[in-house]
């Protein structure tokens, strides 16, 4: 596979719009200026369809997380418009944010509980999600006795109970060690393939971005703007050894270059 097929679009002000009409999640010229005058985001436009896994990479503090907060409605954008169904929006935070007084099962059931799903049904949903993330056998454990990676799995399982058509990930694997992170990347990719949601993932790990995504967007430092866009052509399911593929390395290198600000 030659690198020529990689569509590399350098985009400044104008962003390629992929059929916004039918997209599960669409940002249209989003701008965000905080009350203290900090401009976090400027003219961010892109969309994510079902079956797409889009990752935004960018330097710390560039407003990546702000974008997800806007998508979910936790923050109100000051310019532009978001199109997304917030009723069953999956949103995985940087921290696992498990309730320490609930067991794994109790935590995984929380969302279904908040959506008034009957007890028997949510028990079943939780059971299935726990199996899906590989936490079987830890149902009755409290968060304090779980490792960082396992807590993240529980957090994923909790979101999976909603069967969300749109899945937002805010640097969820930033705090776990390299090996665990690769495992979790592998499993997230598997979930994406089996559930077919529209995924929007935030990270500053380029290898994580390339490994899981169908598309990688590069965001500039504050105010955050999309400065480059890369289609990732590898077939799913992707094997962990893909990371050592020369094409993978080449693509990662280009993204890294774009991230540092040089587009030449």
């Amino acid at each position, binding site marked *: 596979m030659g690198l020529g097929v990689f569509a590399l679009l350098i985009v400044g002000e104008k962003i390629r719009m992929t059929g916004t009409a039918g997209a599960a999640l669409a940002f249209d010229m989003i701008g965000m200026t905080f009350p203290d005058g900090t401009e976090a985001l400027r003219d961010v436009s892109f969309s994510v369809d079902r079956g797409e896994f889009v990752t935004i990479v960018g330097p710390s503090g560039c407003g990546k997380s702000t974008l997800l907060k806007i998508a979910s409605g936790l923050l109100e954008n000051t310019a532009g418009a978001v199109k997304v169904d917030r009723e069953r*929006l999956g949103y995985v*935070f940087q921290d696992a*944010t498990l*309730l320490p*007084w609930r067991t794994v099962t109790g935590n995984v059931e929380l969302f279904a*509980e*908040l*959506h008034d799903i009957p007890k028997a049904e949510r028990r079943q949903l939780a059971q299935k999600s726990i199996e899906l993330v590989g936490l079987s056998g830890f149902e009755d454990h*409290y968060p304090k006795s779980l490792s960082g990676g396992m807590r993240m799995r529980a957090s994923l399982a909790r979101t999976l109970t909603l069967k969300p058509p749109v899945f937002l990930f805010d640097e969820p694997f930033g705090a776990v060690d390299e090996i665990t992170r690769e495992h979790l990347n592998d499993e997230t990719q598997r979930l994406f393939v089996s559930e077919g949601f529209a995924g929007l993932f935030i990270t500053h790990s380029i290898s994580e971005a390339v490994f899981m995504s169908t598309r990688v967007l590069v965001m500039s430092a504050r105010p955050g703007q999309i400065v480059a866009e890369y289609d990732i052509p590898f077939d799913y399911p992707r094997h962990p050894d893909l990371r050592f593929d020369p094409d993978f390395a080449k693509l990662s290198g280009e993204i890294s270059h774009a991230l540092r600000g040089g587009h030449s």
Partner: protein
Amino acid sequence: MTATDDTSTRDSADKGGADKNSADQAALAGIVGGTSAATVKQSMNRGDSRGKNFAATVVPPMMLGGVFLAGWYFVSYVLLEEKRRFLLRPPHEVIRLGFLEWDTFSDILSALWSSTKVAIIGLVIAIIIGFFFATIMSQAKVVERAVFPFMVALQAIPILAIVPLISFWFGTGQFSRVVVCVIIALFPVIVNTLFGLQSAEKGMHDLFTLHHAGRVTRLRKLMFPAAMPAIFAGLRISAGLSVIGAIVGDFFFGKGDVGIGQLLRRYANQLDGEELLAAVIMSSVLGIAVFLLFGWIQNVAIGRWHSER
């Protein structure tokens, strides 16, 4: 011995299983320490470290207790002449007249029980009022701002200063004793409960916001569970204060059941040194019991998920 040697020894030890491992370590320690006796002693320590720990926690306080008793005897028998010995009776006299004399000891116990009841009622009322105010304060910042200065003011009034006022308003019966307990126990309940209710992380609140949880759901499923450790910390303090309140109130209020405060006063007036000391010791036992009881309740209620550091 060079660094390389050191590593290779450890490497082989790792491969060779536990026995070889410890043998190698022993050898290393022998070389480093110069004697093999040190190594033997070390491994023995590891063997009965549990018994060792127990001894380490029990022996020092027992020794201090022994020193304390010796000091007590010294004051009673050496520093005080016989006719002034009533000021501090020797320990065995306290035990004989205060604890083994059933008439006296049953007086102390029933007074203690009377004060305990007052303390429990006062604590329960303080908890109800405290939860109520803390919950409202957690829901509306304006209420918190309005109420808090008065809570601090209430807390700042020395309880002894307010006792005459309470007897003036409510008389000197059981009710006044309970009022003292409520006043003294209320503040820690409110402050700790409020602090606890506000302690849930922002991310957790975001979860509830994302899923459109209402106020009551948020309180019930997030804020109150998150507040439990702080609430129990407050209860432990309040329970202790409530016992003190019951004794202080009883000390000044003459009507109603005789509590431990009245008894202390009577013994002091009659110069019954032994009985007085016995009553003091039993008051302290009550305080310790309350403290342990609430520690136990806390452990049962939230020990599974919360560990104190």
